[in-house]
């Protein structure tokens, strides 16, 4: 009985802690303990959030942000997997490209925003390129690692059965490297979202990141927090969807994962 009760108490506390924090904030704002102009009451943020959704103002910025994220993420990931497989399979390609990768990879990608703004302006191309750059390298590095870790016996066997290089890449190498590729994809999801928000904040005309900065500059603090909540929910939802997809696609590799 006690053993059953313990997890329940923890889960109960898990629900109670956020509620208690919000309630404390609500009371503090109500009593005037914090400056209402800077910290709005959670209930006011909630009302604003409901208003944003019910007036249909959510969809255009959300659509902007999501389309930027998905376009850049998918294009850059596909490209990174292709280059990664080539670099993982061919030593010549690896030797040729690895130094270039090592020169560009450690660069904090937001630093490339100012040069890209000079070349591409503040439009969509610039944002797609900067997000794509952030997504590309983690996927590339992990794909190379995964491809190089493929059991050579598998490849030899496939060759024995008359598989050509193309079929070996898609049927043998790619599935075996998939857990690594997903590691890269997960890192890139977080980085990509960071760059989406930064690009929108610095060069935006729409999108959630732009709205957060815009509301802050015009001192519409309640709206700012409502949009921040939307951003947090978006991050949570994308992360959740990613983990669901990963479990679906990698159910067979669970037992191979090292270190718990």
């Amino acid at each position, binding site marked *: 009985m006690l053993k059953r009760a313990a997890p329940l108490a923890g889960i109960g506390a898990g629900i109670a802690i*956020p509620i208690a924090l919000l309630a404390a904030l609500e009371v503090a704002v109500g009593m005037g303990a914090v400056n209402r102009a800077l910290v709005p009451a959670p209930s006011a943020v909630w009302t604003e959030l409901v208003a944003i959704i019910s007036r249909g103002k959510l969809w255009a910025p959300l659509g902007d942000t999501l389309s930027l994220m998905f376009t850049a993420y998918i294009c850059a990931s596909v490209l990174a997997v292709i280059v990664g497989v080539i670099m993982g399979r061919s030593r010549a390609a690896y*030797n040729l490209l690895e*130094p270039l990768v090592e*020169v560009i990879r*450690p660069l904090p990608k*937001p*630093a490339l925003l100012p*040069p890209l703004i000079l*070349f591409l302006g503040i439009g969509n191309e610039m944002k797609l390129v900067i997000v794509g750059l952030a997504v590309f390298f983690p996927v590339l590095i992990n794909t190379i690692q995964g491809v190089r870790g493929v059991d050579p016996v598998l490849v030899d066997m496939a060759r024995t059965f008359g598989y050509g290089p193309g079929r070996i890449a898609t049927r043998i190498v790619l599935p075996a490297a998939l857990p690594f590729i997903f590691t890269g994809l997960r890192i890139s999801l977080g980085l990509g979202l960071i760059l989406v928000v930064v690009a929108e904040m610095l060069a935006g005309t729409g999108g959630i990141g732009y709205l957060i900065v815009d509301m*802050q500059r015009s001192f519409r603090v309640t709206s700012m927090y409502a949009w921040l909540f939307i951003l947090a929910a978006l991050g949570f939802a994308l992360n959740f969807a990613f983990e669901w997809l990963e479990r679906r696609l990698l159910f067979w590799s669970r037992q191979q994962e090292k270190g718990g």
Partner: protein
Amino acid sequence: MTAQTMTEPAPPPAKPRRPLLQSRVSGVLLVLALLVLWDLSARFWVDSTSWPTVTAVLAALFSGSADLFAAFTSTISLMLKGFVLGALLGVAGGIAIGLSPFLRRAFTPLLEFLRPLPVPGIVPPLILLLGIDDAMKITVVAFSTFFPVLINAAQGVRMVDPVLIDMARTFRHSRLRSMWQLTLPAALPYVFSGLRISLALALIVTVVAEMIAGGTGIGYYLMTMQYAMQPDRMYAGVVLLAATGYALNWLLLLAERRLLHWYSPG
């Protein structure tokens, strides 16, 4: 989410042990060729104010521009302060939720909601609360450092061999002593992989905070030079940041090798 899979693994070493430079001749030549192409194109073909020659960029970097150096030291010092703060809180929190299932369940909903939040989002509210100076930037960096360290530390604590803990209890070691001598060392490799993720992130986030909030630092410097149409100094800043990213990762790997020489993964 394993500690290993959260790191961005370094490319595996070349299998036949040839000297590094010799095996990568083609690659190094490619990088040099691209640089030469850039320089020549800026000299002869592209007539644009946003495309300086490589030599102009290097000149801007090495001519010891005082503001670039000041911006650089400001960035590094804020980043390190935020990183250390976030890492300490992350290790402490990670040990707490790693040791206590109750705390883990109690804080999971809050942490799981905050963790995927794209960090730049909290910069505008923090500007209102803390201003655009050091306190705000340090907080943002600490926030971004906290989560990877926390999650990896918690994971590491749970990987401690329970037999060791039982044995320590048999030998009447105090809980504090077994934590210091058993739990912490066992969690250390995981903590380090969290630190490595966080360090790369901390540099990114510092630059981002400086770009959004302005005031000081290399992120702000880059934006200013872009507006001021001084691309050679802007690129010098980019090159300096790339070198910094490279050096930080290298330093942490070195520290890891020093501290974790006893540990072999896998």
